[in-house]
Protein backbone atom coordinates (compact mmCIF):
# COMPACT_ATOMS: atom_id res chain seq x y z
CA UNK A 1 0.00 0.00 0.00
CA UNK A 2 2.72 2.44 0.98
CA UNK A 3 4.66 1.60 -2.18
CA UNK A 4 1.68 2.44 -4.40
CA UNK A 5 1.15 5.71 -2.52
CA UNK A 6 4.84 6.60 -2.81
CA UNK A 7 4.89 5.97 -6.53
CA UNK A 8 1.69 7.89 -7.20
CA UNK A 9 2.83 10.88 -5.14
CA UNK A 10 6.26 10.82 -6.75
CA UNK A 11 4.64 10.80 -10.19
CA UNK A 12 2.32 13.61 -9.06
CA UNK A 13 5.42 15.61 -8.12
CA UNK A 14 7.66 14.87 -11.10
CA UNK A 15 5.28 14.94 -14.07
CA UNK A 16 3.74 18.39 -13.39
CA UNK A 17 7.25 19.69 -12.71
CA UNK A 18 8.16 18.65 -16.25
CA UNK A 19 5.05 20.44 -17.51
CA UNK A 20 6.17 23.59 -15.64
CA UNK A 21 9.32 23.56 -17.72
CA UNK A 22 7.72 22.63 -21.01
CA UNK A 23 4.52 24.70 -21.04
CA UNK A 24 4.67 27.87 -23.08
CA UNK A 25 2.13 29.90 -21.13
CA UNK A 26 3.11 31.13 -17.63
CA UNK A 27 -0.42 30.48 -16.30
CA UNK A 28 -0.19 26.79 -17.21
CA UNK A 29 3.24 26.65 -15.58
CA UNK A 30 1.85 28.12 -12.34
CA UNK A 31 -1.06 25.67 -12.30
CA UNK A 32 1.26 22.71 -12.85
CA UNK A 33 3.50 23.99 -10.09
CA UNK A 34 0.48 23.93 -7.77
CA UNK A 35 -0.15 20.24 -8.53
CA UNK A 36 3.55 19.48 -8.06
CA UNK A 37 3.58 21.09 -4.62
CA UNK A 38 0.50 19.13 -3.56
CA UNK A 39 2.25 15.90 -4.59
CA UNK A 40 5.28 16.97 -2.59
CA UNK A 41 3.03 17.51 0.45
CA UNK A 42 1.81 13.93 -0.05
CA UNK A 43 5.41 12.73 0.10
CA UNK A 44 5.84 14.66 3.36
CA UNK A 45 2.80 12.86 4.78
CA UNK A 46 4.38 9.53 3.81
CA UNK A 47 7.47 10.62 5.76
CA UNK A 48 5.18 11.30 8.75
CA UNK A 49 5.97 15.00 8.85
CA UNK A 50 2.39 16.20 8.97
CA UNK A 51 3.06 19.73 10.15
CA UNK A 52 5.41 20.46 7.29
CA UNK A 53 2.95 18.91 4.83
CA UNK A 54 0.26 21.32 5.99
CA UNK A 55 2.77 24.17 5.87
CA UNK A 56 3.80 23.18 2.35
CA UNK A 57 0.21 23.31 1.13
CA UNK A 58 -0.50 26.58 2.93
CA UNK A 59 2.65 28.52 2.09
CA UNK A 60 3.76 27.09 -1.23
CA UNK A 61 0.53 25.96 -2.85
CA UNK A 62 -1.46 28.71 -1.21
CA UNK A 63 0.53 31.90 -0.92
CA UNK A 64 3.36 31.53 -3.40
CA UNK A 65 1.36 30.16 -6.35
CA UNK A 66 -1.37 32.75 -5.79
CA UNK A 67 1.28 35.47 -5.75
CA UNK A 68 2.68 34.14 -9.03
CA UNK A 69 -0.77 34.07 -10.63
CA UNK A 70 -1.45 37.59 -9.41
CA UNK A 71 1.76 38.90 -10.97
CA UNK A 72 1.08 36.99 -14.21
CA UNK A 73 -2.33 38.64 -14.45
CA UNK A 74 -0.85 42.03 -13.56
CA UNK A 75 1.88 41.86 -16.17
CA UNK A 76 -0.32 40.29 -18.83
CA UNK A 77 2.52 38.02 -19.90
CA UNK A 78 1.68 36.32 -23.15
CA UNK A 79 2.84 33.08 -24.74
CA UNK A 80 6.61 32.94 -24.92
CA UNK A 81 8.27 31.91 -28.17
CA UNK A 82 9.62 28.39 -28.52
CA UNK A 83 13.30 28.12 -27.55
CA UNK A 84 15.70 27.50 -30.37
CA UNK A 85 16.97 24.01 -31.00
CA UNK A 86 20.57 24.45 -29.83
CA UNK A 87 19.48 25.92 -26.52
CA UNK A 88 16.97 23.12 -26.07
CA UNK A 89 19.51 20.41 -26.83
CA UNK A 90 22.15 21.92 -24.56
CA UNK A 91 19.68 22.20 -21.68
CA UNK A 92 18.49 18.65 -22.31
CA UNK A 93 22.10 17.41 -22.24
CA UNK A 94 22.66 19.11 -18.88
CA UNK A 95 19.42 17.61 -17.58
CA UNK A 96 20.34 14.10 -18.74
CA UNK A 97 23.81 14.46 -17.22
CA UNK A 98 22.35 15.53 -13.89
CA UNK A 99 19.81 12.69 -13.86
CA UNK A 100 22.39 10.04 -14.78
CA UNK A 101 24.88 11.41 -12.26
CA UNK A 102 22.21 11.47 -9.60
CA UNK A 103 21.16 7.91 -10.43
CA UNK A 104 24.70 6.59 -10.03
CA UNK A 105 25.18 8.67 -6.90
CA UNK A 106 22.04 7.24 -5.30
CA UNK A 107 21.81 3.69 -6.62
CA UNK A 108 25.42 3.05 -7.75
CA UNK A 109 27.83 0.59 -6.20
CA UNK A 110 29.57 3.22 -4.07
CA UNK A 111 26.38 4.40 -2.42
CA UNK A 112 24.87 3.15 0.78
CA UNK A 113 24.17 1.22 2.89
CA UNK A 114 21.21 3.41 3.66
CA UNK A 115 19.77 3.40 7.17
CA UNK A 116 16.56 1.57 7.86
CA UNK A 117 13.50 3.53 8.85
CA UNK A 118 12.82 3.46 12.57
CA UNK A 119 9.41 3.09 14.11
CA UNK A 120 9.41 6.46 15.77
CA UNK A 121 9.02 9.59 13.68
CA UNK A 122 10.70 12.66 15.21
CA UNK A 123 8.37 15.29 13.82
CA UNK A 124 4.95 13.67 13.75
CA UNK A 125 3.65 16.09 16.37
CA UNK A 126 3.64 19.80 15.73
CA UNK A 127 4.29 20.23 19.45
CA UNK A 128 7.90 19.17 18.93
CA UNK A 129 8.32 21.99 16.41
CA UNK A 130 7.09 24.52 18.92
CA UNK A 131 9.33 23.23 21.70
CA UNK A 132 12.41 23.19 19.47
CA UNK A 133 11.68 26.61 18.00
CA UNK A 134 11.28 28.29 21.36
CA UNK A 135 14.22 26.62 23.11
CA UNK A 136 17.14 25.66 20.87
CA UNK A 137 16.33 27.78 17.83
CA UNK A 138 14.98 30.90 19.51
CA UNK A 139 17.53 33.29 17.99
CA UNK A 140 17.09 32.08 14.37
CA UNK A 141 13.35 32.24 14.91
CA UNK A 142 13.56 35.89 15.95
CA UNK A 143 15.88 36.63 13.05
CA UNK A 144 13.33 35.08 10.69
CA UNK A 145 10.77 37.55 11.98
CA UNK A 146 13.15 40.43 11.28
CA UNK A 147 13.85 39.00 7.84
CA UNK A 148 10.14 38.95 7.02
CA UNK A 149 9.85 42.57 8.14
CA UNK A 150 12.85 43.57 6.01
CA UNK A 151 11.39 41.76 3.00
CA UNK A 152 8.07 43.52 3.47
CA UNK A 153 9.67 46.96 3.68
CA UNK A 154 11.93 46.13 0.74
CA UNK A 155 8.98 45.09 -1.42
CA UNK A 156 7.20 48.36 -0.65
CA UNK A 157 10.32 50.38 -1.50
CA UNK A 158 11.04 48.50 -4.73
CA UNK A 159 7.51 48.52 -6.07
CA UNK A 160 6.76 52.14 -5.22
CA UNK A 161 6.18 54.38 -8.17
CA UNK A 162 9.17 56.59 -8.86
CA UNK A 163 8.56 60.19 -7.86
CA UNK A 164 10.06 63.05 -9.83
CA UNK A 165 13.21 64.45 -8.27
CA UNK A 166 11.84 67.90 -7.39
CA UNK A 167 9.09 66.66 -5.07
CA UNK A 168 11.56 64.94 -2.78
CA UNK A 169 12.80 68.17 -1.20
CA UNK A 170 9.61 69.76 -0.03
CA UNK A 171 8.42 68.30 3.24
Amino acid sequence: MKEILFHSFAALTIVPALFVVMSRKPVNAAMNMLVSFVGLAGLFVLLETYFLAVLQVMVYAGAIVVLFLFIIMLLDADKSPAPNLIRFLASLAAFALMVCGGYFLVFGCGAGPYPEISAEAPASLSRTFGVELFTTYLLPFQLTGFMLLIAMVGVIVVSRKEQPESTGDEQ
Partner: protein
Amino acid sequence: MIIGLEHYFFVSVLLFAIGFFGVLLRKNTLVVFMCLELMLSASILALIAFSRYHTTPGQGLMEGNIFVLFIIAIAACEVAVGLSIIVALWRRNQTVELSEINELKH
Protein backbone atom coordinates in the same frame (compact mmCIF):
# COMPACT_ATOMS: atom_id res chain seq x y z
CA MET B 1 9.79 -3.46 -2.76
CA ILE B 2 10.42 -1.45 0.38
CA ILE B 3 10.59 2.30 -0.03
CA GLY B 4 13.95 3.37 1.34
CA LEU B 5 15.83 6.60 1.72
CA GLU B 6 17.35 6.24 -1.74
CA HIS B 7 13.96 6.46 -3.45
CA TYR B 8 13.07 9.74 -1.76
CA PHE B 9 16.57 10.96 -2.52
CA PHE B 10 16.17 10.10 -6.18
CA VAL B 11 12.84 11.94 -6.39
CA SER B 12 14.60 14.94 -4.88
CA VAL B 13 17.44 14.66 -7.42
CA LEU B 14 14.93 14.44 -10.28
CA LEU B 15 13.02 17.49 -9.06
CA PHE B 16 16.24 19.48 -8.71
CA ALA B 17 17.37 18.44 -12.20
CA ILE B 18 14.02 19.46 -13.69
CA GLY B 19 14.26 22.85 -12.00
CA PHE B 20 17.78 23.34 -13.29
CA PHE B 21 16.64 22.30 -16.77
CA GLY B 22 13.95 24.95 -16.65
CA VAL B 23 16.36 27.65 -15.49
CA LEU B 24 18.61 26.85 -18.44
CA LEU B 25 15.85 26.47 -20.99
CA ARG B 26 13.26 29.14 -20.37
CA LYS B 27 13.56 32.82 -21.20
CA ASN B 28 10.51 34.09 -19.35
CA THR B 29 11.58 35.56 -16.01
CA LEU B 30 8.46 34.35 -14.22
CA VAL B 31 8.91 30.75 -15.35
CA VAL B 32 12.62 30.85 -14.44
CA PHE B 33 11.57 31.97 -10.98
CA MET B 34 9.07 29.11 -10.73
CA CYS B 35 11.81 26.64 -11.61
CA LEU B 36 13.94 28.15 -8.82
CA GLU B 37 11.08 27.38 -6.44
CA LEU B 38 11.04 23.79 -7.68
CA MET B 39 14.75 23.48 -6.88
CA LEU B 40 14.17 24.86 -3.37
CA SER B 41 11.39 22.37 -2.71
CA ALA B 42 13.62 19.53 -3.94
CA SER B 43 16.15 20.45 -1.27
CA ILE B 44 13.33 20.51 1.30
CA LEU B 45 12.32 16.97 0.37
CA ALA B 46 15.91 15.73 0.74
CA LEU B 47 16.24 17.36 4.18
CA ILE B 48 13.02 15.82 5.48
CA ALA B 49 13.82 12.36 4.10
CA PHE B 50 17.31 12.31 5.64
CA SER B 51 15.97 13.57 8.94
CA ARG B 52 13.29 10.86 8.99
CA TYR B 53 15.57 7.98 8.09
CA HIS B 54 18.54 8.87 10.28
CA THR B 55 16.55 9.14 13.48
CA THR B 56 16.87 6.43 16.10
CA PRO B 57 14.29 5.49 18.75
CA GLY B 58 16.34 7.04 21.54
CA GLN B 59 16.99 10.37 19.89
CA GLY B 60 14.75 12.15 17.46
CA LEU B 61 16.55 14.27 14.90
CA MET B 62 14.70 17.54 14.55
CA GLU B 63 17.41 19.63 12.90
CA GLY B 64 16.39 18.84 9.33
CA ASN B 65 12.76 19.61 9.98
CA ILE B 66 13.56 22.91 11.70
CA PHE B 67 15.78 23.88 8.78
CA VAL B 68 12.87 23.16 6.46
CA LEU B 69 10.72 25.55 8.47
CA PHE B 70 13.30 28.31 8.02
CA ILE B 71 13.73 27.49 4.33
CA ILE B 72 9.98 27.88 3.79
CA ALA B 73 10.07 31.29 5.48
CA ILE B 74 13.04 32.35 3.37
CA ALA B 75 11.31 31.11 0.21
CA ALA B 76 8.27 33.24 0.99
CA CYS B 77 10.50 36.32 1.43
CA GLU B 78 12.40 35.51 -1.74
CA VAL B 79 9.24 35.18 -3.81
CA ALA B 80 7.88 38.50 -2.55
CA VAL B 81 11.11 40.40 -3.24
CA GLY B 82 11.76 38.68 -6.57
CA LEU B 83 8.27 39.28 -7.90
CA SER B 84 8.44 42.95 -6.91
CA ILE B 85 11.75 43.20 -8.79
CA ILE B 86 10.08 41.58 -11.82
CA VAL B 87 7.27 44.14 -11.61
CA ALA B 88 9.84 46.94 -11.47
CA LEU B 89 11.58 45.45 -14.51
CA TRP B 90 8.28 45.30 -16.37
CA ARG B 91 7.60 48.92 -15.52
CA ARG B 92 10.98 49.94 -16.87
CA ASN B 93 11.25 47.76 -19.97
CA GLN B 94 7.71 46.57 -20.73
CA THR B 95 9.00 43.03 -21.09
CA VAL B 96 9.86 40.05 -18.92
CA GLU B 97 11.78 38.10 -21.56
CA LEU B 98 15.37 37.55 -20.46
CA SER B 99 16.68 37.78 -24.03
CA GLU B 100 15.52 41.39 -24.24
CA ILE B 101 16.84 42.50 -20.85
CA ASN B 102 20.51 42.77 -21.73
CA GLU B 103 21.56 46.26 -20.70
CA LEU B 104 24.46 45.02 -18.62
CA LYS B 105 25.84 43.15 -21.62
CA HIS B 106 26.46 46.23 -23.77
